[in-house]
């Protein structure tokens, strides 16, 4: 009986993932309503539960895709992969009010520039403080602080070694997870309660997975505005990283 159930789950990974995620969200909503008196949104709890499960999956299998590396939960990789993430993000555009978005186009761009340069400076600064002096290493770690895609792409373009690239990916992943968890916590401090603020947030916080999950946990109506800007973040970072930013680091430390 149990064997049959397991075979069914293994044969239908995506459908099993739908059922599993539904159960996680159901439990999280109950927890949010009864344990925190509705103060913490169910979706915020669900995302934390997801991260905790990902930790467990990684600890059990020793691989990189969290819970999806456990065979029974393999469907999560497809459901939570970049394709479905981006497809559903685009769908949220159907809820965008054009006038709201138009008001803050230039703000979004300003946020995008700051959101690339500031994390980069912090990353370079920390790497420098830990004794790194090689411009390639400094740039790669700085780029990792922008997003975990900008890091390795920049590193590969300027010829960083694989352990430095791994470090820059780790930096980006840590940042994405911090953004996911702490966006709802700091939402009030950031005045994250209107579409324009969400666009500023999307540009500055950058990392699409962090922004999308952070806004989802804060107020799902803000998601499309933040995502609209954040999706330009990785491309923008990959444009600046190996060019202007690398040259600047080389001029300073080279």
């Amino acid at each position, binding site marked *: 009986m149990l064997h049959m159930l397991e075979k069914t789950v293994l044969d239908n990974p995506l459908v099993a993932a739908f059922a599993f*995620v539904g159960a*996680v*969200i159901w439990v999280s909503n109950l927890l949010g309503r009864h344990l925190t008196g*509705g103060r913490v949104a*169910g*979706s915020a709890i669900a995302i*934390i539960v997801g*991260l905790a*499960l*990902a*930790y467990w999956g990684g600890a059990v299998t020793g691989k990189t895709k*969290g819970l999806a590396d456990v065979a029974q939960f393999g469907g*999560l990789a497809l*459901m*939570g*992969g970049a394709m*479905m993430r*981006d*497809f*559903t*993000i*685009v*769908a949220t*555009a*159907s809820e965008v009010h054009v006038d*709201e978005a138009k008001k*803050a186009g230039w*703000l979004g761009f300003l*946020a995008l520039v700051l959101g690339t340069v*500031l*994390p980069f400076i*912090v*990353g370079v*600064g920390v*790497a420098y403080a830990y004794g790194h002096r090689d411009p390639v290493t400094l740039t790669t770690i700085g780029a990792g602080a*922008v997003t975990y895609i900008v890091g390795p792409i920049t590193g590969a*373009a300027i010829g960083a070694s694989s352990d430095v690239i791994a*470090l820059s*990916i*780790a*930096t980006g*992943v840590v940042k994405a*997870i*911090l953004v996911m968890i702490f966006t709802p916590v*700091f939402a009030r401090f950031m*005045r*994250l*309660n*209107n579409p*324009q*603020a969400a666009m500023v*947030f999307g540009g500055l*916080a950058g990392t699409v997975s962090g922004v999308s999950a952070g806004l989802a946990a804060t107020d799902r*109506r803000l*998601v*499309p505005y933040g995502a609209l800007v954040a*999706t330009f973040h990785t*491309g*923008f970072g990959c*444009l600046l990283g190996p060019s202007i930013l690398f040259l600047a680091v080389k001029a300073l430390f080279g």
Partner: protein
Amino acid sequence: MVIFGTALLAACYLAGVVIGEGIAALIGVKANVGGVGIAMLLLIAAQHYLQKRGMFPVDTAKGVTFWAMMYIPVVVAMAATQNVIVAARSGPIALLSAAGAFAICIVFISLINRVIERAHIASAALEPVSDDHDPASDLSVAPDHR
């Protein structure tokens, strides 16, 4: 029919990603440049165009909104597939640069958002809602508190 909405969404997605790849190739970047953002703009434009001509019935809209509503479940699945181990076990460099980067961004976001709130560039705060609120009725009906 519902599939028309989903197909429209898919077409905008693919077109956006292709354009993003094109821009990337043009400026010599190895990542898609804003493909998803461009896809979002295409979808907004297409929907607007079809609505004005009465070619976007409720059924078609459902083919788009279903996927918009699936967004949070997809994000939960995404969270469950993150490499949390590497994040948790990364050394001080990764942790400090990530935390520092996020902290400084929070401060700037807070600063900018306070300024645009004062300058009335930002819209009024959205009304608080419950988890199972219907998003279709938002914003347009939110009263202006200014």
